[in-house]
């Protein structure tokens, strides 16, 4: 028997549980997106109009939730797929680190893009 299996297992309940939670959040965000854009009418589509909507507390909350959910769900999903292709030991650590870097970068970029509406 290879010894790895007897080593303490990696990745506990949280990644799996958060994948489910973020899936629910994605459903919520998509619903809000579709309802707001296609059902609710905000009048003429002008820069100010859209800006006001994006700057409202509800949308800042929803969009940030969505940002974190998408980044986690997407990258953790990629990670789960790649784990089935032989990423173990140090390769797995490298994979995790790379995904964290990508995730942090994506979230930083998201915050940067949102910055004007946050400080407005």
């Amino acid at each position, binding site marked *: 028997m290879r010894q790895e*299996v*007897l080593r*303490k297992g990696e990745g506990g309940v949280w990644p799996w549980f958060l994948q489910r939670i973020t899936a629910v959040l994605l459903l919520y965000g998509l619903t809000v997106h579709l309802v707001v854009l296609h059902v609710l009418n905000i009048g003429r589509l002008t820069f100010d109009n859209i800006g006001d909507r994006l700057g409202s507390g509800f949308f800042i909350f929803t969009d940030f939730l969505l940002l974190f959910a998408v980044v986690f769900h997407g990258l953790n999903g990629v990670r789960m797929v790649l784990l089935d292709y032989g990423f173990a030991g140090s390769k797995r650590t490298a994979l995790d680190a790379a995904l964290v870097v990508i995730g942090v970068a994506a979230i930083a970029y998201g915050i940067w893009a949102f910055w004007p509406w946050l400080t407005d």
Partner: protein
Amino acid sequence: MPEATFRIHRYDPERDGDRRWQEFTVPYENSLTVLEGLFYIQENLDGSISFRYCCRAAVCGSCAMYINGRYRLACQTNVKNLEDAPITVEPLPRMPLVKDLVCDMTDFFAKYEYIKPYIMHESQYPEKETLQSPEDRHKLDNPVDCILCGSCYSSCPSVWGEDNYLGPAALLWAYRFEADTRDEARKARLSSFDNERGVYRCHTITNCVEACPKELNPTEAIQWLKGAAVRRRIFGRWK
């Protein structure tokens, strides 16, 4: 006298180590199981053939093989019920080979033993039996019938991709004990399967359900374990 043609997987590490196929014709009178056919071949046609056997009554799990493209117990498979000829007999796919139809089950049993497949009990036992309602006992009906034949393990793509994934059989047994009202293992067993070499490696492909010759459902048991892990780790509810 009817005859059955067997096409058998051969592999001898002491010869050339090549895998090859060999055909044998076995006559029979009324009924012939694949296991009886293998014995006929071993006794009369080719003494060098190797396979596992024990109870010949579908309770020991020794003779699980891949017969005509399905996981079956050789003892329980009657040639009359097989449509394709010749009857193709292979060892459990994607397992390390020992010889012919015998595969190496070392990892399989090591993983089974790793999940602590026994009741753990901290409190004092009662003088007589621990009481258990028939309903609570029925929760165990499915997993206690497991004969550890290895079919589910061999059929699981998650096992193919990750040597150290515990696999459906070991996890079914983890469920058998976690779901038992008498068990008090708490974290002792939980930490062996609550990780990505354990339940979270299961992607509910359900090959194991298809493969099981006892018609058990390891996937469902694994899903239950995931739920139990959330209840226990995150909400702190143990039973």
